[in-house]
């Protein structure tokens, strides 16, 4: 038989890989050349120098950083990242809570309740998310105008420009209080560890939950009063056409938060339901035979085993929620894609740099979430003895 490049599997493999590498090298060379030519022809600058140039436009929603239109594009980027993280983080927490509740409701023995939950899940899963965001926003801007805004509990106002509420003003002593808030969480954590150890050794139970709740609430409250209440609330007051003072939560944020939570919550509820169903029936029967209450069965036996099945799809739902937060551009929520990837891109014309930075940011956020969720996933796997 002739010995040529094709006869041996190994040399075939090397040939194919060389062809692929060569093809990509040629393609990249060609693309880079054409792009450079096109950019020069259209007088578009390259490089990252534009990040230090003033942006020249306003951002409607910047709760963490003070932003003026004379700030640089780099600040636009940071405002965008913070806004994206804000809506993703709050959305993930709320969606998880909603998803778990609805998932357990779907398994309820009450036919009417489980069917209603089923209708909710099917409707939310089948309508595109961007339409839901637009729908919620359309509802929120039909709320009454500021002059006729209804009041709740004498402090909050709902209007079509947002939810107005009191703004806390922190005085000097509050720093100590916030240290004690953190400290109380640490104390609660160690109380739980100690209680578990004691139960393992002596079998005596300790009311951990109520004790920890008391510590987290009462200790900072005590310090707060000892320090002389170093926090005042600034209430919104209607002056002319707007409220003066106070804090406002914009309808764009509320629409994004509601739509993301309800949409992702539906998917999470299906994941939770399949997780709980994956625990074999024998577990429930055995724990019933031991005399455990319904509540304890769910909390101690079913959910820990169901978590093994729930966590990997839950991770991908968190990633989906984070990526879906980019849809805020449809209603004007000032997230990363809207500000830096949209307005900055259009103004400077440097599409490649802006897009590359935006995509890289999302990649980093996705990888971080995956990383932490994988650590949690490993921790709940069964440790084979």
């Amino acid at each position, binding site marked *: 038989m002739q010995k040529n490049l094709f006869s041996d599997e190994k040399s075939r*493999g090397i040939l*194919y*890989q060389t062809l*692929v*590498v060569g093809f*990509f090298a040629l393609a990249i060379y060609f*693309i880079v050349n*054409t*792009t450079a*030519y*096109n*950019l020069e022809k259209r007088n578009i600058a390259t490089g990252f120098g534009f990040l230090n140039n003033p942006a020249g436009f306003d951002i409607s929603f910047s709760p963490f950083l003070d932003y003026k239109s004379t700030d640089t594009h780099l600040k636009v980027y940071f405002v965008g990242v913070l806004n994206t993280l804000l809506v993703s983080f709050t959305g993930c927490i709320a969606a998880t809570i909603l998803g778990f509740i609805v998932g357990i409701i779907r398994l309820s*023995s*009450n*036919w*009417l*309740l489980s069917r*209603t939950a089923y209708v909710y899940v*099917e*409707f939310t*899963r*089948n*309508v*595109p*998310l*961007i*339409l839901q965001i*637009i*729908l919620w926003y*359309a509802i929120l801007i039909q709320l009454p105008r500021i002059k006729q805004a209804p009041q709740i509990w004498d402090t909050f106002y709902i209007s079509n420009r947002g939810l107005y509420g009191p703004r806390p003003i922190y005085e000097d002593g509050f720093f100590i209080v916030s240290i004690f808030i953190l400290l109380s969480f640490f104390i609660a954590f160690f109380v739980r560890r100690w209680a578990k150890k004691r139960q393992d050794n002596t079998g005596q139970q300790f009311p951990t939950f109520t004790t920890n709740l008391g510590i987290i609430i009462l200790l900072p409250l005590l310090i707060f009063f000892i320090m002389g209440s170093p926090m005042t609330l600034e209430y919104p007051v209607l002056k002319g056409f707007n409220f003066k003072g106070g804090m406002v939560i914009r309808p764009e944020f509320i629409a994004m938060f509601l739509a993301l939570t309800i949409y992702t919550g539906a998917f999470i509820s299906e994941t939770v339901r399949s997780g709980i169903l994956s625990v074999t029936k024998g577990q429930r029967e055995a724990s019933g035979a031991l005399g455990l209450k319904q509540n304890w069965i769910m909390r101690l036996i079913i959910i820990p085993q169901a978590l093994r099945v729930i966590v990997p799809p839950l991770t991908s739902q968190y*990633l989906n929620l984070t*990526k*879906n937060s*980019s*849809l805020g*551009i*449809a209603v004007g929520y000032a997230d990363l*894609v809207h500000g830096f*990837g949209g307005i900055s*891109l259009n103004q400077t014309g440097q*599409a*490649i740099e802006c*897009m590359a930075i*935006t*995509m890289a940011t*999302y*990649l980093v956020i*996705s*990888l971080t979430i995956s990383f932490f969720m994988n650590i949690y996933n490993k921790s709940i796997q069964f440790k084979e003895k």
Partner: protein
Amino acid sequence: MNIDNKIESRKPPVATTGFIGWLRINLFSNWFNTIVTLLVAYFLYQIIPWFLDWAIFSADFIYNYKGERIIDRSFCSRVANPEEYHAACWSIIIVRFYQFIYGFYPVEQVWRVNVTYFLLAIALIPLLVEQLPYRKHLIKFTIIFPIIAFILLYGGFGFEIVPTNKWGGLLVTLVLGVFGIALAFPLGIILALGRRSKLPVISMVCTLFIEFIRGVPLITLLFFGMVMLPLFLPEGINMDGLVRVLVAVTLFQAAYMAEVIRGGLQAIPQGQYEAAQSVGLSYWQMNRKIILPQAIRITIPSIVNTSIGLFKDTTLVIIIGLLDLLGIGRGALADATWMGLSNEVYVFVALVFFIFTFGMSRYSLYLENKLKTGINMGAD
């Protein structure tokens, strides 16, 4: 014993069987359940009749409350007489129905779109019906359907060319959805096989591509397609707007499809690969004849779920200015003659999407049930 006197066995108590028994077990089994049932029933009673009244019973379709034909928003009952009438005014949909379905396609050529819709229905039949005579031939038609559809919709070969910026509405949604799924499926298979390849370069390239695409939102990919692709192409070659979007959407979907198929490939026992190789099949023959048919059979429900996601994602094109179903809806709302009827438009668009995607998810459930009995025969 006298076997002639058979005593009829008594029926079970009324309260445990039949409808009343079902009510007792499912709705009223204990105090908590009873209270919950009553609360949910009250909640539904408040919402459902109100919604049905708004949408159907009191709504205007063609004529308003005075009996006039509605030609713009000022004729709608709830605009003309807002104190007494609050129901929906569906005339915005009915008057602009052509736009919702075809966009701005020239009226004299619209028969081509209708023929395409009809052929699409025919092309889907072999996927839905199992026992069909001539199924093999119909599947061949399904495979070449995209080419026929392209010629019919766009032009060439004797048909007048209709540029894609005239397409809109449901036409654009279906084109993006159907072409996207049809192109993403083979591309996904190749990516999945590439990722599992033993050649390190190919495996690394495929893995990087898949992980990169899965890590970024679809909007950024759409921006990439619209803004950056023209920069990559030399002078004179202009890629059509719809084609650029289709490229971005297909690449996005192919990456997700590849992961699903990879799951199926992992589930095939090693023995299949070894047996195929020992019989002397080459790599491609082995995949084509032995591995892929099994892998795809296992993962069809997940593939359909991914396709449902793709279909819903096609609405994102409104962000880059393409007019799909939702885009036409928003355009209708911006028009002065129909301003302000946003609730009706959004409910209509949501309903259309719901019908399509719910149908697809029912199909996926049907497939799952059918394949469960097939795969697990004897395995349990």
